[in-house]
């Protein structure tokens, strides 16, 4: 806990944005540890994969584009500090009205939670309550979240795939046919930096990537029984491909799964989720009511949750990859644009 505070304080203090990103990674690790000690394994799982992994990569991708040095500014902001302390003081005062930490009779624990805890093993038939609440009881909610992720993915693509104005539209499909000459133009300026014998990461990555994918599938389909599920599996799957893109190259990763396929996947899978809901409606139940999907309600729930989790998983994978590609590919776009400007 105190570690966490120390970490965050430094995040605030350091000027170099890159270091701040690293420390944010540490904070994320610590946070996930605290989540585990608070029994929230699923959350810790997600925080580990998302907070410490993907978000670090994203921040670094951004810093690669915008530069990592924060402007020196000696002045000490008094106004915000006053506001913060005031907010903190109010909240601190409010904690004395909070129920005792961890007491089983807290208001939070007495509304819907007992029903989830007691009924879900019989109603849904899967041991992981988080999964059953996520996919079944609060199916609408999750559908909304998936849509948010979908929208964010599309939004990032829209913002970052835009080309500079001075570029003509002659080379519209430049992304799909990478221009090797441009690439080498950049590469030659850097060739003094890299050395040629970076064999170790290549070999290790080659060894590990299949296992990562198998593990992601395990997390996906074991989510009913242990911690895991669509969100986590999606992130792990995306992480596998990101590792591939990092160690080998973005172009090779694009050859594995290109952007059009990603767009297609994002759209198709949101539709899959919705489709499960509509199928429930067509079969005589409510939207996202899985009981009617099979003759036995419990089996129906199983099927519904499986499909929905699959939908979530693929959406998350595709959205994360879309975001990653967009960030990393942006450098190429800028470079192409500037070279075109020079000509």
């Amino acid at each position, binding site marked *: 806990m105190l570690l966490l505070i120390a970490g965050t304080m430094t995040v605030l203090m350091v000027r170099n944005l890159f270091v701040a990103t690293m420390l944010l990674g540490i904070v994320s690790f610590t946070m996930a540890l605290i989540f585990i000690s608070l029994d929230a394994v699923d959350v810790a799982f997600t925080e580990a994969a998302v907070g410490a992994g993907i978000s670090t990569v994203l921040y670094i991708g951004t810093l690669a584009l915008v530069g990592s040095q924060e402007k020196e500014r000696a002045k000490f902001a008094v106004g915000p500090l006053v506001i913060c302390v005031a907010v903190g003081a109010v909240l601190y005062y409010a904690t004395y009205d909070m129920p005792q930490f961890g007491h089983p009779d807290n208001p939070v624990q007495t509304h819907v939670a007992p029903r989830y805890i007691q009924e879900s093993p019989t109603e849904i038939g899967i041991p992981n309550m988080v999964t059953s609440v996520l996919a079944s009881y609060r199916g609408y909610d999750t559908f909304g979240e998936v849509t948010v992720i979908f929208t964010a993915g599309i939004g990032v693509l829209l913002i970052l795939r835009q080309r500079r104005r001075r570029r003509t539209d002659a080379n519209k499909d430049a992304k799909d046919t990478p221009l090797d000459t441009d690439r080498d133009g950049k590469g030659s300026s850097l060739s003094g930096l890299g050395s040629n014998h970076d064999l170790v990461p290549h070999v*290790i990555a080659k060894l590990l990537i299949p*296992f990562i994918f198998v593990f992601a599938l395990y997390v996906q389909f074991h989510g009913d029984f242990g911690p895991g599920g669509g969100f986590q599996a999606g992130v792990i799957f995306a992480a596998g491909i990101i590792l591939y893109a990092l160690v080998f190259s973005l172009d090779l990763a694009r050859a594995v799964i290109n952007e059009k396929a990603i767009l297609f996947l994002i759209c198709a899978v949101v539709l899959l989720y919705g489709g499960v809901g509509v199928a429930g409606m067509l079969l005589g139940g409510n939207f996202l009511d899985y009981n009617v999907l099979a003759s036995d309600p419990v089996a129906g729930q199983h099927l519904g949750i499986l499909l929905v989790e699959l939908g979530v998983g693929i959406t998350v994978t595709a959205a994360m990859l879309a975001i990653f590609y967009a960030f990393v590919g942006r450098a190429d776009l800028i470079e192409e644009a500037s070279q075109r400007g020079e000509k």
Partner: protein
Amino acid sequence: MELVLDIATWILLLAGSVLLVITGYGLLRLPDLYTRIHAGGMADTLATTLIFIGLALQSGFSLITVKLLLVIVFIFFTSPTSSYALAQASFVAGLKPKLDGFGAVKKPDEDA
């Protein structure tokens, strides 16, 4: 049999703990990056392996053991790899090992 396993676990975990603390101390006290990599990369791997083997002895033979072994293998592969990549990257970036006096330390932020 139980007792033997327990004692083995105790020894392994204790050794791991001691190594870990040494690692932390080394990270803090060693003079430059390349020596710190020894603390952060190698001792860590050994400590992880020791502790997880100790835990695996306690878990009986089940899925947990398999997972523990997987973690060991994973750490065994990735930790040296990232240490290697780190050392290589910093060397390429011009950070010289501290041999005797205080060498010129190049700020890595300025290149690239």
